[in-house]
């Protein structure tokens, strides 16, 4: 659709659009920006092409022949310019004389217009006077003038005046039309600016409302900030107080810990003292008991004391020997000396004490184990205070048995075999 209007625009750009097409185009351009742009660009393009054509700057002889007289052109232009107020009468009339001026150059100056009109009026009067007389004469005798014959004698000056008046009327009409269009354009501009002002006012009102809202929000936020600051100060004071209390408590704790440590040390010292005292008391008790045992042993009426030796096949005495303190029906204390300790320590053996009756050599009763009594003396000891068991035996001997052996009879070789019968050493 725009194609058709563009074609009209192109034709209108060189003044060759049909009138109907011009009407249609004008109505279309009221609301079509694209075609308005096309029209503008076509017109600019055509005018550029014309202006850049060298022929446009030349006046051909054909045109030269039809151009009006230059003086007439100037006169009419200046007159019209005076009406518009562009020139003053003085400006149009005065020009300094130049050395080469002659009658004809002066005649052509606008300042001679009054002279020219005066001469024209005089010529007109000379020509019309006889005609006017004739007209008056004929009117007096009732004959109307022949307009056709007289009109042929109308001077050219009258034609020029009427033509000038026609030009002026046309020019005035055109000027009025131009001013009316200017007024319309200004009205359109006024409407546009009024609309813009209205929009700006609305924007300003909304901005003011937004500003008030922001100011109100700002006040609320300031108040909240103040409250928050107060709370913060209160919390800072409480924190300082807490810290002070914590410090005091820490100081007290440190003191308590120091006191605790001191007490602990004192308690440990006292505990050690108590332990040593207790140990001493136990030793004393032990010693006391041993004293008692020794006293009981030494003063027992039916005490038997034996030294027991082993001899080899050649009758030589072996190193190990034993000493038995037997109180009949009461206790048996068997000390052994220089027992061979190598095998028991490395092979997992131990010295066991057996009891038996001489009459029943195949039977034996395990009485217990030897324990190291004094390593420096290489002394071993066994004690039995079971009167019942002692009543069943009349001899004792030692064997080397494996650890954890539950055998009811001895398996190892007899050592330090001793008969408990006989007469007591201390009756």
């Amino acid at each position: 659709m725009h194609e058709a209007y563009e074609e009209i625009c192109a034709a209108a750009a060189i003044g060759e659009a049909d009138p109907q097409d011009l009407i249609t185009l004008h109505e279309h351009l009221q609301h079509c920006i694209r075609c308005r742009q096309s029209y503008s660009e076509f017109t600019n393009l055509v005018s550029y092409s014309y202006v850049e054509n060298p022929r446009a700057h030349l006046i051909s002889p054909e045109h030269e022949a039809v151009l009006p007289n230059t003086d007439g052109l100037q006169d009419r232009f200046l007159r019209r310019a005076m009406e518009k107020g562009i020139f003053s009468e003085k400006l149009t009339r005065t020009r300094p004389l130049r050395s080469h001026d002659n009658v004809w150059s002066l005649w052509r100056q606008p300042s001679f217009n009054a002279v020219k009109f005066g001469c024209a009026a005089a010529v007109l009067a000379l020509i019309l006077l006889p005609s006017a007389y004739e007209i008056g004469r004929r009117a007096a005798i009732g004959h109307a003038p022949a307009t056709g014959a007289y009109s042929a004698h109308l001077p050219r000056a009258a034609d020029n005046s009427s033509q000038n008046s026609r030009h002026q009327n046309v020019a005035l009409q055109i000027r009025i039309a131009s001013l009316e269009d200017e007024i319309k354009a200004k009205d359109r501009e006024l409407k546009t600016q009024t609309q813009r002002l209205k929009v700006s006012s609305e924007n300003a009102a909304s901005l003011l409302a937004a500003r008030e809202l922001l100011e109100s929000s700002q006040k609320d936020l300031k108040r909240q900030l103040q409250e928050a600051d107060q709370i913060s100060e209160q919390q800072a004071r409480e924190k300082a107080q807490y810290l002070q209390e914590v410090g005091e408590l820490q100081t007290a704790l440190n003191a308590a810990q120091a006191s605790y440590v001191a007490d602990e040390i004192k308690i440990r010292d006292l505990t050690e003292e108590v332990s040593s005292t207790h140990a001493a008391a136990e030793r004393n008790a032990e010693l006391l008991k041993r004293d008692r045992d020794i006293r009981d042993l030494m003063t027992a009426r039916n005490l038997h004391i034996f030294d027991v030796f082993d001899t080899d096949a050649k009758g030589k005495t072996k190193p190990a020997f034993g000493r038995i303190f037997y109180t009949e029906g009461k206790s048996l204390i068997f000390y052994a000396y220089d027992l061979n300790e190598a095998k028991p320590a490395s092979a997992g053996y131990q010295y066991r004490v057996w009891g038996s009756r001489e009459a029943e050599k195949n039977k034996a009763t395990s009485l217990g184990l030897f324990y190291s009594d004094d390593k420096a003396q290489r002394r071993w000891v066994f004690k039995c205070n079971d009167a019942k068991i002692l009543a069943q035996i009349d001899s004792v001997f030692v064997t080397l048995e494996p650890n954890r052996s539950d055998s009811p009879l001895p398996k190892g070789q007899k050592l330090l075999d001793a008969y408990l019968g006989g007469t007591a050493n201390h009756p």
Partner: protein
Amino acid sequence: MRALQAGNGEALKVIFDRYHRLVLVTALRILRDVGEAEDLMQSVFFEIFQKAEQFDPSKGTLTKWILQYAYHRSINRKNYLSLRKFYDRVDLFDVHGEETWITKVSLPHQEAVRLVDEALATLSCEQRAVLELVFFKDMTLKEIAEQTQQDFRNLRHHYYRGLKKLRSLLSKNARGGDGLALEEQIARANA
């Protein structure tokens, strides 16, 4: 021109003396009537006096500036007279003041000459022939149709196609006075 831009009427007289015949011939070429051409000539100089401050010597000579005004106003007057013959409405095209739909775009004339020459070379034979006769021989489309014995509508179509191609090339390359492309400047002015 500076004196004229200052409102000196004497300067207008000097410019009128120098250019009135050129303006008159331009109007005569288009309007084909001496009376109309003289009236238009006067209007052109009065308008030049009112808008003298718009002349920018960096964008072209005074001669070309005046001739552009003369050509624009002549085309306007021709369209106006065409309408007046057939309708009572004569207010469609402003015959004296600014043309409603034309946006003044300054195009350096050397640039315009180069671009127009380049664009003409790209046209078809028929299109180039019509445009050259219109632009350089002052012939109307009807006169060209009669002389070349071609159908007027076909001829007008060739003219339109050729002009459209020229316009397309110039639109891509032209820059307004403020550095905008031709299309952008026109769009802004019409916004």
